[in-house]
């Protein structure tokens, strides 16, 4: 979480009306590029993340791998995932730094019902504003990468901020700063896509990885964290979904059917109101006697619908 005034805001969760200052300032889209082929699994990025964000120490889980814990946690946003992958008779030890992907079309933001709890900046960073978070946890089910994590004590959800507080001051994210092998890069999205493309080309042509490529899934309009994988056709080998999607309940249902439902409710209240005006009440019968004869009838007859 950072001061929302640091960057120009592009999208706000559950926000009716315009976004203040939208489109008034030009900002370069930022991107983190992770070359998994040069990651040595040293976990310097994990430590840097915990330190910079001032997270308390938490217990680790030993499950017969080098992995610190099974998945990212509310106070452990950066986790290297170790996979022992057997493919075509070859064993490969795959390491991938897992964190928020900062999607161009963020599922968490789509799912969030609290005004201003999740914001996306013009530069592509998706940031949670815990002050506005109501702890419903919909973002957890909206995320295709299983990143937002619930804190049972504070009843709020937390995730990687792409160090928006550092980036706002012109610094690179803490994990980038800590990486000793240069497998982590940070810069503008266009630059990173270009460098990643070159590296993938090098892997294909020089290193013999014919299927190497850049992971920047189009199904969520790209991400602001991209990977170079040695086998782009099977990102599942790294624990990444091939075509990550936001559940349609947060896209189609929420933005189409929800306003429709609301309009229906308003029309329903209007309908019963005017039903009463047009058709009148159902009185216990026999209701008051109707006019048959006498002077009153003559008065009514002379009235001709005029007040």
């Amino acid at each position, binding site marked *: 979480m950072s001061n929302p005034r640091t960057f120009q805001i592009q999208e706000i969760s559950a926000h009716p009306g315009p976004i203040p200052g939208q489109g008034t300032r030009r900002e370069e889209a930022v991107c983190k590029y992770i070359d998994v082929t040069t990651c040595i699994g040293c976990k310097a990025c994990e430590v840097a993340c915990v330190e910079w964000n001032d997270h308390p120490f938490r217990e680790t889980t030993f499950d017969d791998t080098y992995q610190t814990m099974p998945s990212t946690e509310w106070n452990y946003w950066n986790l290297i995932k170790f996979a022992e992958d057997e493919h075509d008779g070859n064993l490969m030890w795959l390491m991938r730094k897992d964190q928020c992907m900062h999607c161009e079309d963020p599922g968490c933001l789509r799912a969030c019902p609290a005004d201003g709890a999740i914001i996306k900046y013009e530069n592509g960073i998706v940031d949670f504003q815990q002050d506005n978070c109501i702890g419903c946890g919909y973002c957890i*089910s909206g995320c295709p990468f299983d990143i937002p994590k619930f804190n049972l004590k504070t009843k709020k959800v937390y995730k990687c901020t792409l160090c928006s507080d550092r980036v706002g001051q012109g610094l690179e994210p803490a994990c980038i700063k800590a990486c000793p092998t240069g497998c982590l890069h940070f810069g503008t999205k266009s630059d990173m896509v270009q460098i990643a493309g070159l590296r993938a080309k090098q892997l294909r042509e020089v290193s013999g990885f014919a299927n190497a490529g850049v992971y920047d899934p189009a199904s969520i309009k790209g991400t602001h964290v991209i990977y170079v994988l040695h086998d782009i056709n099977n990102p599942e080998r790294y624990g990444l979904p091939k075509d990550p999607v936001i559940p349609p309940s947060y896209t189609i249902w929420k933005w189409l059917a929800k306003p429709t439902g609301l309009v229906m409710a308003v029309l329903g209240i209007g309908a019963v109101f005017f039903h009463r005006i047009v058709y009148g009440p159902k009185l216990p019968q026999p209701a008051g006697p109707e006019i048959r004869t006498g002077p009153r009838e003559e008065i009514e007859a002379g009235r001709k619908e005029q007040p």
Partner: protein
Amino acid sequence: MSVTAKGFDEKARGEFARIGTTRIRRGELLRHPVYTRFLHWSVAIFFILSLLTGFAVYSPWLYRWLTPLFGGGALTRFLHPWFGLGFEVFFLLQFVNWFVPMAWTSADSKFVRRLKEYATNTDVVEPEDTGFFNGGQKLYFWVIAISAVLFLITGILMWFDHVFPRISVAISYVVHDVAGLVMLGGFIIHIYEGTAHQPGTFRSMIDGTVTDKWAWTHHPAWYRAVTGRDPRESYEREKRRQAERQDVIESFEREEDAGERPPQIRTPPKP
């Protein structure tokens, strides 16, 4: 329906009748005993609280209007499942209470077929086979019963959404919304029918009684069952009496206007 549930319901009815009072005056019938009224308003209170907290989170256009009523977004989110649980508990008791009279009959199928006539006030009095509840009321009851089950299942999945898998929450989200919208539609009609559209109905849930006139007009078969009289005959007799009274009044008025009789304080004839 298990025997214990029925036994509990009868005991509760008896206990509430002992503590509470329902005054039935001349020309009135007991419609809802104290226990039923208590359950109805408990369900209503929890339903309205659930509706307001739910709609606060339901739509961005309502979020800023409704969350302040409950002390902000986080508290609204915290309270909603508890309000919902209150609704579930009291509706379960009401389900036991009303299960028998809510059984669907051929008269109710007829009601649904003649919905247009009902909605356009075509009939002055309801068809003679309309019992304690009409088809519309039963329909609403069963819609709530089904919705209550859906609310409970999907609600629990979403309450602990950091535990259940992503897909179950995403599906529950839609089901919960649809059930809520259907119930809101029924709720709007329910309030309208019980107040503005049918005068004389609201008191049945406050004082517990309705007038004879109301009973033979809206629920003739129930009127027959509790009084043993023919609803149509009672209606026609009341109509005749009313016409006779009106004749007397009008003849007095004519004589007065013609100067045949000195003006006098008009007192309505004793019924």
